[in-house]
Structure formats: C-alpha cells, structure tokens
C-alpha cells in the first residue's frame, strides 16, 4: 500500500466536509434539532417548576364535614389555605384527578377532641399520581402542625413541658424541593448535551459509509492511490467536525435559554456561564470526536446501505443506553464510574454544573477513554473499508 500522505488525508477530509455540508436538508435539520432541544427542555422544566410552586402556594383544601372542625378550618385559613367545605362526590373526583386530595373529618370529631379521645381526620389521595404528591405533602404537614399545636397547649395546661412528650425531635430538612428539582435539571442538561454529541454525528456517519456504498463510489475511490488509513481518518475528521458543530450549537442554545429563563427565581442554584460552558466543552470535545469513530466503524460493517444503516442504529442505541447505568443506580458511584464511556461523561458534566471540583484523574478519564476507543474504532473502520469482501459483495 502507498505510504501515508497528509496531503491526501486533508483532500479527503475537505471533500467530505463540502459534501456533507451540501446536504443541507438532513445536516441542518439535525443541527437545528439539537440546537433547539436544549432550550426547549430548559423552558419546559421552568414552566413545570413554576406551576408546581404556584399550586403549592395557592392551595385549596376540600374538607368533608368541615362543620365538625371549625377550629381546623380557621387554622388552615390563617395559614393561607382556602377551604372548600363538603366537596360532593369527593372519592370519585380524587380518583379521576379533579381533586388532588380531600380531607375527611369524622362526624364525632369535635366531641372526641373535647373529651380527650383521639379524633380522626382521613387524607384521601392517590399516591400513584405524581402531581398530587406535593399538595398532599403540604396538607399533611398543616394538619400535623394543628395537632401539635393542640397537644402542646394541653400539656402546658397540665404543667408539662411539651419537650417531655417528645424526647426526640425529628427535624426534617427537605432536600426534595429545590435540591431535587435541581438534580433532575442537572440530569436533563447533561443528557441533552451528550445527546447533541450523538445526534450530530448520525446523519453524517451514515452518509460517508452507507451513502458511499449506495452511490457506488467506493470502488472508483479505491482504485486511486489513496490509502484506506487516509480515507478512514479523512472521513472521521469530517464527521467529527459536523458533530462538533452540533455540540457547539446545543451549548449556545443552553447558554441563551438560561439567560432568558430566570431559573434563579425558582430557587434553582444554577448558573450556566463562561465557566460551565468551558467545562462542558472540555468534556464534550473528546466525546464529539469519539462518537463518529464508533459510528463509522459500525456503519462500514454492512455490505449494503441497508445493513450499514441497521448496524449504525445498533451503535446509536448502545451509546444511548450507557448513561442509564448512573441514572438507575441507587448507591453512590463506584470509582470506575467515570471510566465507563458516556456514563462517565454524564457524571462529570453533572459535577461541572454543581460547581464541584473535578479531579485530575477524572479529566484524564474524559480524554483517555475516548482516545482509546476512537483508536480501536478507527482501526476497525479502516480494515472494513479496505476489505475486499465488503467491496465486491453486492
């Protein structure tokens, strides 16, 4: 085989880039898709968060038999909760989602309370319905608060310090509100950033592998002095460049969206400024080079365009499945977490957003793992390009 030539490599790369960028429809549609999906997710999350907060603040408590517990009604109203007395047909309406919850006061509530027996209030809700959970939580808290208040008064009347009856006070520091919301948000953002680095490469990788077979241009190409290594690297560079464009577009989309949407108002402690942008790019650049390598190696595996396409689809789903490792895991991340491709990127991106320090070893993983995978993939890709079985077998 002819000696490796950088000139020919750059000729191949330049031609592929021109060729790819001429395919306005599919390339630009893909770029546009990834650029817009980030901002869209940010806005969506914003509105969801805002509506949850709004609903918790402006809450109505439907109370069945409210007339038996006038003190509770007054207590709730003082706490800013509107009371809807005796909602008709409440069980069915809670079930079908018209009401989030209903409180049921037993008929002998006042009598039981007065005589010192235990008085019962039932909270009717549907725990499987997620959007009702914060409201149920708020009402539970309020009713407990009311009960505690009465208990404390009674003990004080009997000359007992309320602390005696409660030797251990459990303070609840609820992380689920702001922090959990921000964790969800982190996951989403990291996921979409990686998603851009995957989606940006698919159309292009398909075009330079399956497309070349479909158009029957591989054979003429291989009769020229070009070496398969030059072809492989040239194609890889071209696809990687398109992918890098997609990643940059997506990041700029986030940058703009987070400037426009006032997340701070919702109490989300984020900032997506220059520091985060740089951190993201430092993780995403090696990733954006690795993905095309893998996709090309798979895309070149088929003798026909169709085979190449299915093989490439397989690669895409494999890459897409990897972040599930950390998404589904319940325990703390083990040390090897960052060394698993895609999954590691996901973890480090989340750390960048949380403004945590990233260890030198983690940075090493972000660059060494993609480099190694890319090397293996490119060798496989070059082999397949030069394989005569792939060539003549039509």
């Amino acid at each position: 085989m002819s000696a490796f030539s950088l000139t020919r490599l750059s000729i191949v790369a330049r031609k592929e880039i021109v060729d790819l960028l001429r395919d306005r429809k599919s390339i630009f549609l893909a770029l546009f898709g990834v650029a817009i999906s980030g901002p869209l997710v940010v806005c969506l999350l914003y509105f969801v968060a805002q509506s949850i907060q709004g609903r918790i603040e402006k809450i109505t408590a439907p109370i069945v038999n409210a007339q038996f517990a006038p003190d509770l009604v007054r207590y709730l109203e003082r706490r800013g909760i509107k009371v809807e007395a005796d909602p008709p047909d409440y069980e069915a309406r809670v079930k079908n989602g018209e009401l989030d919850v209903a409180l049921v006061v037993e008929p002998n509530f006042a009598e039981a309370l007065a005589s010192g027996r235990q008085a019962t209030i039932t909270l009717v809700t549907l725990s499987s319905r997620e959007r009702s959970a914060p409201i149920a939580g708020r009402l539970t808290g309020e009713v407990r608060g009311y009960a505690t208040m009465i208990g404390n008064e009674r003990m004080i009347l009997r000359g007992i310090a309320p602390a005696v009856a409660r030797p251990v006070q459990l303070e609840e520091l609820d992380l689920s509100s702001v922090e959990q919301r921000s964790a969800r948000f982190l996951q989403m953002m990291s996921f979409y950033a990686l998603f851009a680095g995957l989606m940006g490469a698919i159309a292009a990788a398909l075009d330079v592998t399956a497309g070349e077979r479909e158009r029957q241009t591989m054979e003429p190409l291989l009769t020229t002095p070009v070496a398969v290594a030059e072809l492989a690297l040239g194609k890889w560079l071209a696809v990687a460049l398109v992918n890098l464009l997609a990643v940059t577009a997506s990041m700029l989309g986030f940058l703009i969206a987070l400037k426009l949407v006032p997340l701070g108002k919702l109490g989300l402690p984020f900032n997506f400024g220059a520091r985060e942008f740089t951190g993201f790019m430092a993780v995403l650049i090696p990733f954006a080079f690795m993905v095309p390598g893998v996709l090309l190696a798979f895309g070149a595996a088929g003798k026909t365009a169709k085979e190449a396409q299915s093989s490439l689809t397989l690669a895409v789903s494999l890459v897409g499945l990897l972040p599930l490792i950390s998404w589904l895991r319940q325990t703390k991340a083990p040390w090897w977490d960052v060394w698993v491709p895609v999954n590691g990127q996901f973890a480090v991106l989340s750390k960048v957003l949380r403004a945590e320090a990233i260890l030198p070893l983690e940075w090493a993983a972000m660059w060494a793992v993609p480099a190694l995978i890319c090397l293996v993939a490119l060798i496989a890709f070059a082999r397949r390009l030069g394989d005569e079985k792939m060539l003549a077998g039509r």
Partner: protein
Amino acid sequence: MIEIEGLCKRFTVRERTSAFALKASTRIVTAVDNVSFNAKDGEVTGLLGPNGAGKTTTLRMLSTLLSPDAGSARIDGADLVSERAKVRQRLGVLGDAKGLYWRLTARENINYFGRLQGLSLPDSERRTRVLIDELGLHDLADRPTQGYSQGERMKVAIARALVHNPQTVLLDEPTNGLDIMSTRSMRELIRGLKAQGKCVLFSSHIMQEVAALCDRIVIINKGRAVFSGTPQEVLATTGLDSLEDAFVKLIGSEEGLFA
C-alpha cells in the same frame, strides 16, 4: 502494457435451499480460472464474454480491488500485488461501479480524483478543464451531478478515470446504457486514447462493438480465456463470416480452441 499470467479468483458463496434452513451451505465459485493474455501499448484490447463470464472480476483484480488467488499480472512492469501503489498510479479505471458524488458538481468530482491521483491543485484543475472541453460537458460542469442522465454520468466517470492522464486504461462495459450518439463518441474517445499510444483494455458482451474497435480480442467464458487473437483470426478460426455466429460458436463449444 498489461501482462497477465494464470490469474485465478474464487469466491465462497453461501447458499440457502429453503427459507427456514438454519445452516447455509457454502460453495466455491470460480469466477476467473487461469486467464493469461497481454495487452500492448497503442492497441485496444477487447475482453469479450457473456454475462457472468468473469470480465468484471478480471478487471477488478487488475485495478487492485481484489487480490488474485493465483497467478500474477504486471502493469508496465509493476507487479499487481507487491507494487500496488505504482500500479494504481499507472491505471485509469472505469469500473463496474461508476457512481458519482451527487451533491458535488462534475468539476468537483473530477478534480477530487485528480487530487487523489497526486496532481497539484492547478494541474488538477487544468486537466479537469481540458477533459470537460473534450467530453462536451461545459453546460453541466458546475451543476451537482444528481440530475444527470445516464450518458452524462458516464462521461463524468470516464473523465474522472482519465484525469491523471494514465498510460493504461481499463474500461468495464463503457457503452452500457448509452444511445447511438454517445456510443459513437465513446468509441472516438477510445480511438483517441489508442492514437496517444495508450494501452486500452475494455470489456463488453457485444461482438460488433469489440470488432469495430479492437486490435485484439480475448474471449472469456465461464472464467476461462477461450480465444485470443485479431478479429480476422476469429472469423478464420471458426470458418464463419458473421462475427456474432463466431462468438456464439466460440463460447458454445470449447473443443479445438487454443485457450
């Protein structure tokens, strides 16, 4: 100059006799079986054979796309296997696959191959211009090749094969799908290459076409070269006066022929 000696190529093919058969049996297909012939500079050599004879496979081996299972071949003295790079530089190939890059213009398609063949950018652009002139592609040259007619695509493919002015030219069925006018201009082009002292080897399954152009004919059938000689010798050997009858006779029975 092409010198071929005992070239062989076998393919392993999978066969399924029923749609539900779990195991496909494999069979060896001999596509090219001990083919030897020479093609000289300044001559047009025709590789004639019916469908499936092994013409494309022979040309693919000569253009270094497939490696031969046995035998050897030299292009201008350079060995097919050990001196691949040299062989590729000497060769211009219009193969069985004649695809173009749809989104690139004719000029860009030709120029890309010129650059890959090692021409400098100005040289490559100059050669591209010359070929566009010669082939009458002016009006299309700067349009993407997507909407080209079959004849127009063929012209671009041939220009691409000749961009580096190769000494030896391989053409696999260069008139396939062309109308009478385009076929004639293709023949003119082949004669022009011959006049420049190039070695042209082209394949066809049409006897008349080969007879009209070739100084020497190699007839292959079922992977074997069954005849090699001038068009006159074809008639003389068979004792027939129609070339088509002679062709049919030659591939129909192999007895008494020098392979």
